């Protein structure tokens, strides 16, 4: 989902950041960022998305070697979903995370059924999938039908901005954002919104690309992301530039410690992170009290 949406909000974030930081290979893309006006950019990104939507899953699998599935599994098990949960998955248009949460809840309630039928609250489970891009939501809805979840009352598809959520204060048990917060223009605002909508005891979880700091792995990872990913993007999705944006936006996202501090500043407690694949991906979590 967010591999592609990564591009969608970069328009406003990148120019300023490019001015500040010197990037590897920045010469190859920097003028592109500077020359393209915001409105055109969003249209471009929209077009890119519709052209690659069919290859979306394939691209994720190719770029991560299939590991994104494991990361998402790990992410959802970290959340510990429960029947009757009210959950908000932001930037989750394609439903990858939401489906996993729902499956997990269903397996729990099946088990619970044998023990204590009174405890089953499955009907009340509500998973809101919020995405700024309606195309992403459409992909997710289509996939829900394919999975036989089309009729599920638990899944609710909402078009919305992570910086200005339409949900009430203290209304959610969980908030997840997988490969999405990197693309939000003001991360602080998105975190503040997450804090606002969560109930006391509710948890914030974020799955995002992060920093690899282990010397040799770091070089390999850079080589891979700047040489292989754009090439694969060109070959499979027919769009080199958007994948170039993807890898650069990953470099610009704050490293684990800094992002964790931002989460703590938003008011969350027990802020922790866990590195997967040496830090190429990190799971951050926070608890609202």
């Amino acid at each position, binding site marked *: 989902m967010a591999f592609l949406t990564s591009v969608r909000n970069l328009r406003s974030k990148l120019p300023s950041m490019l001015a500040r930081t010197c990037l590897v290979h920045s010469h190859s893309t920097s003028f592109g960022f500077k020359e393209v006006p915001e409105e055109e950019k969003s249209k471009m990104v929209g077009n890119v998305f519709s052209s690659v939507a069919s290859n979306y899953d394939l691209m994720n699998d190719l770029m991560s070697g299939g590991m994104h599935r*494991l990361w998402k599994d790990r992410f959802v098990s970290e959340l*510990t979903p429960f029947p009757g949960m009210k959950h908000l998955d932001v930037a989750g248009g394609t439903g990858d995370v939401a489906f996993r949460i729902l499956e997990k809840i269903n397996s729990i309630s099946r088990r619970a059924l044998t023990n204590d039928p009174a405890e089953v609250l499955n009907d009340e489970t509500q998973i809101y999938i919020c995405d700024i891009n309606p195309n992403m939501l459409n992909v997710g809805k289509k996939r829900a039908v394919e999975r036989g979840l089309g009729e599920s009352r638990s899944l609710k598809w909402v078009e919305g901005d992570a910086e200005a959520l339409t949900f009430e204060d203290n209304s959610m048990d969980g908030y997840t954002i997988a490969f999405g917060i990197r693309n939000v223009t003001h991360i602080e605002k998105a975190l503040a919104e997450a804090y606002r909508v969560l*109930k006391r005891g509710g948890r914030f979880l974020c799955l995002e690309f992060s920093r690899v700091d282990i010397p040799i792995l770091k070089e390999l990872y850079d080589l891979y992301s700047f040489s292989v990913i754009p090439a694969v993007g060109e070959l499979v999705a027919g769009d080199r530039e958007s994948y170039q944006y993807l890898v650069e936006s990953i470099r610009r996202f704050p490293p684990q410690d800094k992002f*964790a501090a931002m989460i703590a*500043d938003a008011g969350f407690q*027990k802020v*922790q992170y*866990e590195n*997967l694949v040496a830090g190429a991906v990190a799971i951050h979590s926070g608890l609202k009290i």
Partner: protein
Amino acid sequence: MYPTVVKRLIFSHFSTVSIPRRFSHQNSSVQQPLPQTTVDETLASATTSTETTDEAHRHDRQSSREGERRRGVEYEDEQAHVLEAALRHVVRLGWSEAAMIAGAKEAGVSMAIIGSFPRKEAALVEFFMDDCLQRLIDRINAEEDLKNHVHSERIAKLIRLRLEMQAPYVPKWPQALSIQAQPANVPTSFKQRAMLVDEVWHASGDQASDVDWYLKRTALGGLYSASEIYMLTDNSPDFRDTWAFLDNTCSFVKRHWIEVSIFQH
């Protein structure tokens, strides 16, 4: 869709999954701060060694601690409330996530908080162990008549005091033992038992730290565990058989202790 072997390979070889880093001020092994100084020191020394101490981390922890103070509620307190409430459901639901969910419901916080306990039901068992130890320490401080007992009787009395605390949970206690025996939970459960045994020795009036320090603690640990296991299958009213067993074993150990001591020197 992926074999677990692949999962294991990827996560174990290239990740730091087992060491989630901490930013806010926290103590994962003990949810409730114990005011007693000896216990606190043991815990502090045990936890600081695992924490990273570079400048950035210290700064982060500092700033988040200030943030917590501003809000006035520490998450540890909230977690303790949840666990405290969950204990009331243990007899019915066992040492399980279900009990913790019931506890969260009762404490009036979102049930999602259960996800913030990394080892789930182990947190509940450990909370109970800490709680019992604290109550035992309080009783030791409050009760003067302990000093009137003979040494071995004092030990038997203390173990009985402690075991009585888990009497209501006896039908579910095997489950707690199995949770404590899981590899991930062994370090904490071992530490908690060591602290308990240590506390009992101190309360019995033994302040020595001579060569048989380990021997004393091992013997007492065995005595405690044996009684604990005996209690699980004891159907006599008010666990009368357990207390008889405890007294017998205690005097047995006492009788043979002299022989062991002679053997040592």
